[in-house]
């Protein structure tokens, strides 16, 4: 059985939700601790949402220098699938595994909503079970989710197909080009602000036209990782 690690930092909130999503997708969830070295032999890693180190300094900045991040950065550079969700995305940009930065929402308020996303890249380790153009609904909840990068970086992301998700209908935080998530050129590292791990089980997900709280669009993130691990095994 594939083993997917979920890192807990001081102030992580959604680590157990991410572990649950991993289990519902059919993998073994392995709890990893920020202060440890070594990755316990996991095949992939999720950096979960929350407020690591109370968002002191900058969101994700201190967590990016945690001991375990040295091993995660090395493994990511060797091709291991790494998914950063919300604060995890902020950690990935602070660790320079993904370009750009995340700043306070342009309207200045925390936002919490079920958000429609358009899948723009369905060939990453975390999105290969989607089709390009798919519209999915997963929860979004952040205060500093505005994605920014200089015009050169934005042009490269767009030109090389590294934008993975775009916000549809409404840009909830002022992100450049409506960007909700991006990947690295190899496609093994993906970061996004919305929370797929909160849309993995009927009865606990976003509302859909079919039924209240029936949305499970987030599950494919985790089954994608399993598919990608099987393909490389």
């Amino acid at each position: 059985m594939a083993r997917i690690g979920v890192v807990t930092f001081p102030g992580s909130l959604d680590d157990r939700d991410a572990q649950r999503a991993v289990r519902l997708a059919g993998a073994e969830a392995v709890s990893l601790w920020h202060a440890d070295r070594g990755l316990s032999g996991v095949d992939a890693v999720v950096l979960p949402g929350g407020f690591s180190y109370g968002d002191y300094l900058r969101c994700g900045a201190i967590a990016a220098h945690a001991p375990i991040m040295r091993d995660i950065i090395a493994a990511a550079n060797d091709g291991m699938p790494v998914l950063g969700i919300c604060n995890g995305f902020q950690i990935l940009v602070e660790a320079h595994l993904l370009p750009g930065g995340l700043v306070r929402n342009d309207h200045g308020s925390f936002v919490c909503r079920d958000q429609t996303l358009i899948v723009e890249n369905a060939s990453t380790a975390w999105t290969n079970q989607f089709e390009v153009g798919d519209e999915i609904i997963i929860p979004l909840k952040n205060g500093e989710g505005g994605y920014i990068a200089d015009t050169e970086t934005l042009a490269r992301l767009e030109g090389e197909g590294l934008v993975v998700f775009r916000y549809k209908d409404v840009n909830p935080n002022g992100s450049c080009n409506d960007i909700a998530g991006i990947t690295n050129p190899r496609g093994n590292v993906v970061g996004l602000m919305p929370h797929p791990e909160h849309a993995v089980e009927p009865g606990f997900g976003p509302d859909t036209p079919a039924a209240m709280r029936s949305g499970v669009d987030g599950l494919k993130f985790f089954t994608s990782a399993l598919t990608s691990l099987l393909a490389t095994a």
Partner: protein
Amino acid sequence: MPVVVVEVMPKPELLDPAGKAVAGALARLGHTQYEGVRIGKRFELTVSKPVTPEVLDEVRALAEELLANLVIEDIVAVYESGAEDEFDEFSGVAAGETH
């Protein structure tokens, strides 16, 4: 012990929603002459040895590595507190003379 100051500001071309909120509060208080507010950070690093040019260079490197994120922020100043013409505009005296 000597103190090295690092000042960091959000990049000028980026929106600073926190500063914008403060500017709005000033306007609501009737202070309409202030057209903008931007909020930055000031770090004070207490050093256990005299501040040499090498120490300042090291702090500049640390500022680039950790204290600031150059994607979204600029390091606007790195200096030893009280060593240069630092001026405390609130009390009207040089900072080195205040304590």
